[in-house]
């Protein structure tokens, strides 16, 4: 029966990170890499995947050790665990592609201090079972990657006239350089947040409407 309970929970546990608790659009966590490495779709995807990897692996270890980590030393322990997996990702990316490594620059190492990861370790992994933690971390990672991709695609298309390195508009297109610059990141992020909140408001408004309707009926 316990298992069944877990199963009913899982879908929610996963989708939470995608929409309702999206790390970027709702929790506004980890803004530093969001703004810095979302200048092209490919960079955004790579950064999202690297963060997801660290989220899942560090969450898994924290969840496994949650009963033996003393409360007083928990943050230090989490940071060691997170830093380990960030270092691993750092080496892996270097082994996969140096070009990608140079493009992402210092932001791979800076995943260590990304608040999403420590936040999830503290708020979720340290009190949930392994399976749930991993699924939730996958959802959060997917949500983060999705948000980065939203920004990255808009910025690359407008700022460089290409998508994932493929030229879209031909040589006559004059790129909006500001979109690749940090200021463009802020502009796109704010517009996306606006859109996200607008949709959410409409959804909740509709829910209320149908709710009162039912109550009245």
């Amino acid at each position: 029966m316990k298992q069944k309970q877990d199963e009913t929970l899982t879908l929610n546990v996963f989708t939470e990170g995608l929409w309702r608790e999206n790390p970027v659009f709702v929790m506004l966590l980890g803004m530093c890499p969001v703004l810095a490495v979302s200048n092209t779709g490919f960079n955004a995807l790579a950064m999202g995947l690297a963060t997801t990897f660290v989220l899942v692996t560090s969450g898994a270890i924290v969840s496994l050790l949650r009963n033996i980590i003393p409360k007083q030393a928990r943050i230090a322990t989490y940071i060691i665990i997170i830093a380990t997996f960030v270092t691993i990702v750092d080496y892996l990316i270097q082994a996969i592609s140096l070009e990608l490594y140079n493009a992402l620059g210092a932001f791979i190492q800076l995943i260590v201090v990304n608040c999403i990861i420590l936040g999830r370790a503290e708020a979720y992994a340290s009190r949930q079972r392994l399976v749930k933690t991993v699924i939730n971390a996958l959802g959060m990672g997917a949500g983060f990657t999705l948000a980065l991709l939203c920004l990255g695609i808009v910025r690359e298309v407008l700022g460089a006239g290409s998508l994932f390195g493929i030229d879209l508009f031909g040589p006559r297109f004059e790129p909006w350089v500001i979109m690749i610059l940090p200021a463009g990141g802020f502009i796109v992020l704010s517009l996306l947040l606006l859109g996200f909140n607008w949709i959410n408001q409409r959804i909740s408004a509709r829910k209320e409407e149908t709710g009162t309707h039912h109550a009245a009926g």
Partner: protein
Amino acid sequence: MTNQNEEQSPQKTPTLPMIAVLGGVAMLSGFLVVLVFQLTKPYIAENQRRATQEAVSKVIPDAVVQKQFLIADGEISPFDKDKKGLSIFAGYDAGGALLGIAAPANAQGYADMITLLYGYDHTCECIRGIRILKMAETPGLGDMIKLDPQFQKNFVRLDASLNKEGSALKNPIVTVKHGAKKNNWEIDAISGATISSRAVGKALNKSAQMLLPKLRPHLPTLRSGQPDLAKIK
């Protein structure tokens, strides 16, 4: 939830478990990092080698064979990673004739150090091409030094001939304002990216002034530098 727990337990700090857990986690972490480091090392080295090789073949276009040398204390020797010195690349054609030399150069750009590789052709005593290896210049402005075709044209035949004594460049390589280039040892700056363009000029001048006088007496050695040892597959 944590607040409740914290309020309930102002008890003594469990020193031993803290040390044990932190120590254990740190050990595990060290083991994992070393493991991954060892596993990825050959791939990273291979990537780096390929990146350098690609850059060299960009600045010495027709080279079929590349060989790395080390210049230290006025002597030239085949590259040895344990020895210190300035590392350069020599490019040869299929017949083993020396086509040119590629050497690294760097200078402070607008955002960070710009590192580049340039190809020197000893027959025309000129620079035949550059390739930016590392930079953090402003996207859309400073980073045009990497791809702007107009700017790259500066390096098709940039004069880098030595003076009579062979101690320095006859004319130092300088970057001039966009559109003001008159001599072929001048670099026409990109308008809007003057600082980055100047940095490229500075890097080339610094490296050429230092390297080329040292290189000249060794050209015969380089010409005969058994290139088949470093055959590219």
